[in-house]
């Protein structure tokens, strides 16, 4: 009981800044850009800028050439105007200060951006128990607790650094889970990604703290292409968190990230996201187009990958964090809350590909639509021929707040093994008037009642998040709900 009282959700509701998107500030820092547009020279420019070894340049060019042959996917239930891929910058970075050795040398202007976001990076103030990689406009600007992690043999650094310090790991794993041919946005990312986080947990190591990357878009007119790669060797464990914000702008900005996870035998990766990119204004103007490919492979037996996401931001969300359950007895999980309001559109879900025997997956998806938004769950559960005794359970619920929004469920179940058990359930409903009245009768206003009910509805997913993120996620849900109760 005391747990519940201490982690009192309601205090959070009260503390809510009754403001709109509060991360919408823009910081004027010195930045350099690649010329606008995309061609092979830009790809070469990025690779050169990063002083990459030749295998990287070749890899990027292969992806770029393949991308040219691909078309934007059309099957998702979202509408947006044609994106002009030549009308954006593919590289923006804070001007490089050579020989940056530690955090004390990081541009104080950049540190102040993160401080404003509640992510202090400097030694005195840094968050306890969480190592942070701060990525500004796709370039890693600082990583905390590096030394402590190094002692345990853990590598946590910008991927641009890993390309130099651990090229053998990057070459082996980059694109091994999400090949450049996978989809339009993954191909684009492979060609032009500028940075992201790299994590390597050696055999038998349990990562002593949460690892976190905090993504911030700052520059305007810039596409964002980060790449994250996490490798958990045999018997290791890591919990990784990802947060993101962007300035408020009238234009739409493209964010096309790729995340790859590899879990070897007996390893476990827990990946949590609180996605709060700028969602656009009340009229649907501006906001981030979030086209993200996230996939993990449970390579070894008894490995586990767990995705948790709270999606409240972005004008369009297109993402399907997936698990390939290759190792026998491996486990995949997907817990998601997707909240859309105003004119936001979300088409999100997961894929669970059962290949190994006795593999298990669990999908819990909670969609909340308000305003004029469209919110779709799209998921695939595939049981291949040899995945004997595999099991899946999926629960996909949708909550509608208002009669101008839509809630949709598109599950695909493909079963090719007779000993597998697959169960899928979905419901769509609104909040019961009786519950609202009950809460009103106890003195709680309708708006607070809705926030309380929505948080209760999302609880099963929020419970999967580490405490600090759960707190953040609850606040976000309540903020996103604002104006949805008429």
């Amino acid at each position, binding site marked *: 009981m005391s747990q519940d009282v201490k982690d009192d959700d309601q205090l959070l509701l009260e503390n809510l800044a009754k403001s709109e998107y509060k991360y919408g500030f823009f910081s004027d820092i010195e930045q350099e850009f690649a010329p606008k547009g995309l061609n092979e020279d830009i790809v070469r420019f990025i690779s050169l800028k990063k002083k990459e070894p030749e295998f990287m340049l070749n890899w990027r060019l292969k992806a770029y050439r393949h991308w040219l042959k691909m078309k934007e996917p059309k*099957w998702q239930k979202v509408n947006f105007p044609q994106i002009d891929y030549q009308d954006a910058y593919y590289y923006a970075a804070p001007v490089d200060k050579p020989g940056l050795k530690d955090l004390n040398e990081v541009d104080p202007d950049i540190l102040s951006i993160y401080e404003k976001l509640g992510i202090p990076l400097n030694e005195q103030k840094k968050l306890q128990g969480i190592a942070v990689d701060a990525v500004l406009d796709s370039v890693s600007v600082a990583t905390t607790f590096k030394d402590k992690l190094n002692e345990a043999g853990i590598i946590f650094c910008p991927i641009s650094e890993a390309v130099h310090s651990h090229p053998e790991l990057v070459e082996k794993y980059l694109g091994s889970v999400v090949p450049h041919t996978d989809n339009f946005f993954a191909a684009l990312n492979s060609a032009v990604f500028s940075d992201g986080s790299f994590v390597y947990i050696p055999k038998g190591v349990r990562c002593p703290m949460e690892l976190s990357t905090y993504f911030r878009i700052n520059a305007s007119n810039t596409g964002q292409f980060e790449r994250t790669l996490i490798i958990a060797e045999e018997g290791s464990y890591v919990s990784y968190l990802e947060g993101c914000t962007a300035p408020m702008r009238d234009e739409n900005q493209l964010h096309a990230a790729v995340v790859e996870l590899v879990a070897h035998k007996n390893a476990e990766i827990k990946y949590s996201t609180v996605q709060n990119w700028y969602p656009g204004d009340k009229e649907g103007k501006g906001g981030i187009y979030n086209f993200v490919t996230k996939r993990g492979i449970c390579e070894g037996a008894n490995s586990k990958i767990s995705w948790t996401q709270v999606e409240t931001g972005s004008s369009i969300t297109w993402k399907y964090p997936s698990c390939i359950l290759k190792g026998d007895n491996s486990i995949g999980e997907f817990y998601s809350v997707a909240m859309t309001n105003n004119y936001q559109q979300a088409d999100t879900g997961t894929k669970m590909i059962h290949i190994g025997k006795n593999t298990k997956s669990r999908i819990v998806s909670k969609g909340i639509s308000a305003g004029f938004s469209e919110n779709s769950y799209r998921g695939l559960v595939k*049981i291949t*021929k040899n995945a004997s005794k595999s099991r899946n359970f999926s629960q996909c619920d*949708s909550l*509608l*707040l*208002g*009669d101008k*929004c*839509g*809630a*949709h*469920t*598109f*599950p*695909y*179940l*493909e*079963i*090719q*093994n*007779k*000993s*597998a*058990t*697959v*169960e*899928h*359930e*979905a*419901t*769509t*409903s*609104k909040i019961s008037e009786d519950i609202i009245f009950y809460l009103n009768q106890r003195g709680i206003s309708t708006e607070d009642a809705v926030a309380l009910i929505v948080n209760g509805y999302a609880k099963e997913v929020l419970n999967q998040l580490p405490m600090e993120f759960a707190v953040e996620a609850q606040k976000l849900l309540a903020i996103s709900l604002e104006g949805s109760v008429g």
Partner: protein
Amino acid sequence: MSTNISTSEFKQKLINQFDSLNGLSAESNRREALAQFDSYGIPTLKHEHWKYTGLTFLNKHNFDIIKKSEVDYSVMQQFANHPLNNIEAEKVVLVNGFSASSNLKSNQSGVTISRLSDFDDAQKAQISDYYGQSIKLENNPFIALNTAFAQDCIVIKIDKNTVVETPLQIVYLNFADTHAIINNPRLLVIAEEGSQATIIESVHSFGEFASLKNSVSEYYVAKNASLEHYRIQDDSELSHTIDFTQVNQENDSHYHNVNVSLGGQFNRNNIHTLLNGENIESNLSGVFITSGNELFDIHSLADHAFPNCESNENYKGILLGNSTGIFNGKILVRKDAQKTNAYQSNKNVLLSDNASIFTKPELEIYADDVKCSHGATSGALDEISIFYLVSRGIGRKKAEAMILNAIADDIIDLIKHEPLRLHLLERVENKLNQ
């Protein structure tokens, strides 16, 4: 017997046959349909609605579209002793979509059964609000194909407030004795206000060659009318079906469809209901048992356009051998359809290592005051139930058969026509005991 031709060759072959046919629809309508068929082409696995339903059989059998003049009605003799010819019902027997007789009078008052090809202009005008009005040619290549090539249509009209005592049975006989054929039957059923009827459709294939029944049926269920509709297919490995059934319902109407499929090489059923009024009840249910290399596919849509309606969908599959089952059910609740209750369930049992089931239950919802849910499951037989039966002294094989029977019977019991129900229960038992 089988020469493979490419999909585009096959399409062109059909298009080339267009001019030699006397089509049923107006020439302009037929031409438009042909153009739609031509532009869409034969669907591939890349088309969302055909993602799991490969149409390679079309290239294998050298199909020709059958002409009215070629129809050999002698096959009716072969059907005479079929059990489904002997259940109590008023029958309309069609051979490759054509009726031998122009005199199709019903023995029941208030019921008219006729061939559209016999209609004069005045009669045609009377059905102009119905014939072809509930379906769309765009993005429906097989409806377009049917519309371009259909040479006749059976029209059934049930007058206002008529209670039809004896069920009406439409018997589709596919007959391919000299070469592989495609027939394009067409059915129009108009149940007027306050009427009640039961309609049975059954499909039977004969001959040495493959047949494809590419049928389109339109059902109009008027205000306060009540229609029971049973579709039975218990057919051979030469039988292929692509069927599209559109049901339009008005205020306070009831429609109940039971689809029982126990055999047939390729069986694609599309059943779309439009709940075009208030207080409508619409129930779709079905069971399929597939074996060998059979494929059964049901694509359903419950389209809620008005408030206060209820729809239920309940489909079950039992899969053996190398067979494939596909279920794609969609509940669409439009903006104004508040207070909708819609429920959908799809349960499957795989009995073979080589059988596959692909299921996609969809919800697309634009109104908030609704209760909608769906569930889909797939698995082996429930071991706990089997153990319970075995522990009471029942042999394992028998116990499994009992449980499988119970799954199928659950749907078959929804058939209110007793002779048909009893026949199907027996057929299922025999089939599952094999």
